[in-house]
């Protein structure tokens, strides 16, 4: 299911290999990231957007997006439908 890019709060870890989200809040529920299944980047104008496919400790799938222009996070996909 596409969420249209709903803004969320995310806690991310900064490591040498890059940034990795590990907790986020969506729909008044806190989720812990169990594993990152994919990461990729695209651009919107001069700004980079980092996308993450994550599976949470509840077994749910989310796609999260970090926008470099304002350091904001959004949920872009939830669940199976992509």
């Amino acid at each position, binding site marked *: 299911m596409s969420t249209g890019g709903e803004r969320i709060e995310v806690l991310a870890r900064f490591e040498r290999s890059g940034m990795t989200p590990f907790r986020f809040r969506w729909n008044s529920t806190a989720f812990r990231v169990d594993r990152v299944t994919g990461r*990729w980047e695209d651009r919107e104008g001069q700004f980079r957007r980092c996308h993450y*496919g994550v599976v949470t400790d509840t077994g749910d799938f989310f796609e999260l997006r970090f926008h470099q222009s304002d350091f904001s996070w959004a949920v872009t996909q939830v669940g*199976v439908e992509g």
Partner: protein
Amino acid sequence: MLAMRWFVHVDMDAYFASVEQLVNPALRGKPVVVGGRPGSRGVVSTASYEARRFGVRSGMPIAEAVRRCPHAVFLPGRFALYVDMSKRIFEVLRRFSPRVEPASIDEAYVELETAAPGDAVRDMQKAIRDELQLTASFGVSDTKYLAKIASGFEKPNGFTVMTRADIPARLWSLPVGALHGVGAKTGARLYARGYTTIGDLARAPDGLLERQLGSLGAVLRRHANGEGGGRVVPPEEAPDAKSLGCEQTLERDLFDRSRLEALLTALAEKVGRRARRHGLAGRRIVLKLRDRRFHTITHGRTGPHPVDADGEIGRVARDLFAETRFWERGVRLVGVTLEQLVPNGDGRQLAFDFETARALPALDRIRTKYGEHAIAAARTLEAGAEARRKPRISFSIPDELAAFQ
């Protein structure tokens, strides 16, 4: 055994669908179709093997795929994700050989100097599977062309070695359509002349195929004997582009001339911008049109000077369009291509006026900074959402390599 040169063709299995299943574990084991949502006009880019069991194939209209497999998960596709993964695949391959030639987003040729190609390929296959959790099928041969054919023999996750010595046994009994480059039209021409198998082409008397089919006949005869493809050409050694263009399949057939002209203007802007970014200008502008019955035409014009200005490309494209009167037939696809490219500045037509000459670099900078759709010619607004959809961008290369695209 002495080390010798081997060509390996790597073909990722159901690539887009496999990447989607990799990123979203909930999709694993389910039929997945990448190309568009139900109700859209697109065609299937890739179907997972689960969807293929229901008869869904690449190139099939989404509506047909929905009919065959209504319970599949239909996804529009995310090119950035596939490009990113593709780069990682090519990085893995480059660990095995510096001579890696990407043939498309999910295919590559690798040239190896080894006495044991089987071991090397098994290592490559394992590296892709272990590090990226994806599978690929491999073809290994002493010619590049045969390697490509061989990779299709055992899919998915297969591995086939086929040398020129194997051609009579493994290749000649296959139908002519199994040769890469032989589509429905060429296949029909060959059948009409009595060539049904690849062996028929290979055994044709000297000069006969050329007389019947022109230069294509000579190429097919070479391919039927497993020849062709030359060496693997890494990107840094690749020849310069020969043309660049953009095309767009429309969500629905358009009969509205002014909207189509607006769309042509938008495509011309994209082509012009890409030409300037690569420091190129083109002497010939070609319009491509497909009507609702899938009849396709191209119509081009060669100008006295190479051009790279959006306005000039758009003006010629609209003139060509007016000459075709294609809007009366219902347009399904439009495309604009710039050909006969030369480095920007080699006799390039100066921009129409001083203001335009100053405006174009400014427009380019705005789009670089704020995105492709941050600014556009007013006349493109009439094209509506079509002008804001992502067009398919083409970048062609010389004929001798085109056979492998």
